[in-house]
């Protein structure tokens, strides 16, 4: 009996640590994308996390794991829509983001639809769903249906245990704004299709929330040149 309890507690403890790490990575991700978050929110210590989000039974209370973040002014400016004669001061592509951990034990089409509807109704420009279970194929198909109102992304908790961009072998990725992209294409006299490519489902592209047609600047260290920049088009 006591053994059983011990095993239970140990399993709970492991889930709490995993969830805390995913929670931290998600915050870092939002901050890296340019959303406004305080340093305190990003570097939440495990003890504080446990105080705040642990239920009485010692399990993590996922229904509390949700937050929204506003884009910083820099980010708004960077993703400004191009001005047209009809609309001289258009808005920005980015808006408030809603990040939520899945509270249920399954992630099917129905849950995804609920999440998409919620994000669309609350006028969130982007929604991130972090799931601790596998996502079904029909759930992924639901995402496209909300494309005109909100951008839905999903991550597995397992993939967020460590922040991949902090790895030694992952170079710095910077998304270019529309003007920067135009300048790049003009400078090298390229067409869009002549750039090297990066997939939308590339882990770093997913981390940065890239969309098709955006260009990312990859800054690598180089033995001979110090720094070496290459550019990739997201497809």
């Amino acid at each position, binding site marked *: 009996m006591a053994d059983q309890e011990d095993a239970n507690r140990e399993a709970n403890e492991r889930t709490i640590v995993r969830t805390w790490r995913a929670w931290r990575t998600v915050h870092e991700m939002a901050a890296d994308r340019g959303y406004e978050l305080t340093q305190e929110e990003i570097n939440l210590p495990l003890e504080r996390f446990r105080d705040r989000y642990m239920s009485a039974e010692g399990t993590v209370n996922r229904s509390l794991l949700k937050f929204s973040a506003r884009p910083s002014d820099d980010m708004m400016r960077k993703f400004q829509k191009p001005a047209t004669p009809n609309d001289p001061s258009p808005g920005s592509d980015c808006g408030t983001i809603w990040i939520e951990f899945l509270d249920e*034990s*399954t992630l*099917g089409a*129905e849950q995804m639809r609920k999440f998409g509807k919620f994000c669309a109704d609350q006028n969130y420009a982007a929604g991130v769903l972090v799931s601790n279970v596998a*996502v*079904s*194929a*029909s759930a992924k*198909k*639901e995402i496209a249906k909300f494309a005109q109102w909100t951008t839905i992304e999903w991550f597995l908790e397992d993939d967020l245990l460590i922040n991949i961009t902090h790895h030694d072998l992952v170079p710095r990725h910077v998304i270019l704004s529309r003007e920067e992209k135009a300048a790049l294409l003009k400078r090298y006299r390229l067409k869009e299709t002549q750039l090297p490519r990066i997939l939308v489902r590339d882990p770093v592209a997913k981390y940065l929330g890239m969309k098709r047609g955006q260009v990312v600047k990859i800054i690598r260290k180089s033995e001979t040149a110090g720094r070496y920049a290459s550019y990739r088009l997201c497809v």
Partner: protein
Amino acid sequence: MATQTKPPPKGILKKTKITTEPTPEEPDAAVKARNLAIHHASIIHDRRQMSDAISDSIIDLSKLPSGSASSPPPSAAAPSDEDAATFTSQVRLFQPSDYEDLIEERNCLGKCGYVLCPKPRIKVNQTGEFKLVNFGRKDFAIVPKKEMERWCSQTCARRAMYIKVQLNETAAWERAGIEGIQIELYQEPGSSKTGKKSSDPAEDITRDLRALKLEADRKAASDARELALERGDTGDKRKNATGRCQREGEGCLRGPSRAFARSERGWPSTSRGIQTKVRSKRPCVMTWPARKN
């Protein structure tokens, strides 16, 4: 620049009188174009609606069979009439891939992949990709663990696959109107043939006839396609090639050797590229420029 001083290229076509009449017709043309655009837009809209309906029914069917705490759902072998009717009517428009999605969706919810089965799916408690089934017996098999975990039992897998083989790859909107396409549930081996389905022999016969007609239609379509392929009706190029070779019989025979000699002498790469591509189909074409030189 030389290119700028050149006069514009002169057309070789005969000069035709430009009619100045289309102005009165213009509004009519605009209306026509608009109607055409609306027509195509509505077709796309209908298709979207159809695919939305399919994903809705995936969600609905993943919750079947319906039952409450007081009246537990019946077993997969003898489902309730209501559930069976919803299932067969909704699955009618599915493509096999949609059906696979439905099974995956049900598995995600922890249920057996067969829609009318109330049991949870099996969880195989072992590591490794494969599992041995019926060890030491005649029907021994090595089954991927993933495949096993989709169902509650082997019979349910059989029932679900019986549905899947009846589904058609054709797009849903092409099938929506055809009443002849009906999905049948798996006939349980235990139940006698004189069940409720076969109570009316006339109904049986009409069903068989309908199936036959559908089969005949499909056969006719595939035959026509094969014949077209054999005749070479699929593309204009193939047609031309055979036609010309027959007309120029001799040139056809002489072609390859000449073309080969030419390539020895060193032709520009582009023409050689064409040559190699075309040689098999219409070698005679390559003989023409040679005679002039």
